[in-house]
């Protein structure tokens, strides 16, 4: 410092002093402030991609290309269907397509019986501890895991299926379910079984409440119950 009587207290910090060094310091501080403002501003503007690092971007790109592959496959399917419809003069393909679609929708809506790989879940509940909420959780878990067709007891599960507690047990869609409760679900057996078996999942909470669920993976599950349209 050139000034010998340089102040030491905090007050002297605010006393203006002008020399070349101070000016450079001020300029550097200004640069810092400017950079901070620019950075904050650019962060506001594009938070999505500009700030993402390489691995994040690679992940996003992977997702996108997967999705575009899927969509491309859809396009191919639809093109095939269209070509079939155009070639077909007697309307045979159209009828075939409509029938196939009706079958798919019927299965999803629950108006047609269905067969396919899936699981059978038996919930033994000798003490009658299982409430409707537990069965609903089980159903939701199966749906989340990709079950396409589900039957509970003799009830085919549809979009508006409900469970309710009654004096003697649980009611599903107005029918009382008999113990042991039996779920049939068509979908990827391994995925469904894994979903039910996750720690803290459906089977464990059933076990905690005194019941016992057994999952059997089967190559062929037949769901016979249907809903009236």
């Amino acid at each position: 410092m050139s000034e010998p009587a340089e102040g030491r207290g905090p007050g002297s910090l605010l006393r203006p002093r002008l020399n070349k060094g101070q000016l450079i310091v001020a300029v550097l501080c200004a640069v810092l402030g400017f950079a901070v403002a620019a950075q904050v501003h650019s962060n506001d503007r594009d938070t999505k991609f500009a700030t993402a690092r390489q691995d994040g971007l690679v992940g996003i790109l992977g997702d996108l290309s997967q999705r575009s592959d899927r969509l491309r496959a859809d396009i191919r399917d639809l093109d095939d269907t269209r070509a079939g419809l155009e070639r077909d003069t007697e309307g045979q393909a159209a009828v075939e397509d409509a029938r196939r679609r009706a079958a798919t929708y019927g299965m999803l809506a629950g108006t047609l019986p269905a067969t396919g790989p899936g699981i059978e879940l038996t919930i033994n509940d000798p003490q009658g501890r299982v409430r409707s909420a537990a069965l609903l959780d089980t159903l939701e878990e199966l749906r989340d895991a990709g079950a396409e067709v589900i039957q509970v007891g003799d009830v085919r599960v549809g979009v508006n299926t409900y469970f309710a507690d009654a004096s003697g047990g649980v009611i599903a869609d107005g029918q009382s379910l008999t113990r042991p409760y039996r779920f049939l679900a068509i979908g990827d057996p391994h995925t469904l079984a894994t979903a039910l078996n996750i720690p803290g999942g459906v089977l464990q909470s059933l076990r905690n409440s005194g019941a016992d669920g057994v999952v059997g993976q089967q190559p062929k599950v037949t769901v016979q119950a249907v809903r009236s349209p």
Partner: protein
Amino acid sequence: MIALIGLAAGIVLGFVVHPAVPLWLQPYLPIAIVAALDAMFGGLRARLDGIFDDKVFVVSFLSNTIIAALIVFFGDQLGVGSQLSTGVVVVLGIRIFSNVAAIRRKLFQA
């Protein structure tokens, strides 16, 4: 005082001008800013200790920012950019905290 005015002027200018950060600078600017903040707090502490030197401040400011940006640059080249930036931010953060603690002790005797 002039330094504070400069800082305020820079911030105001930045918000008024709305500069776009050039693409090549984008990975390095945040780290450089943290490094500059460290230098600034170091300078403030030295000022309160009465050992502030313009030259030391300028050199430490520039070398801090450049080295921080260089570390991130090399990290990016080596494929560990994000980890190295985290490391740099942690180290500089610790330094900023210790500087601020010293400043606080000086100012409030606490």
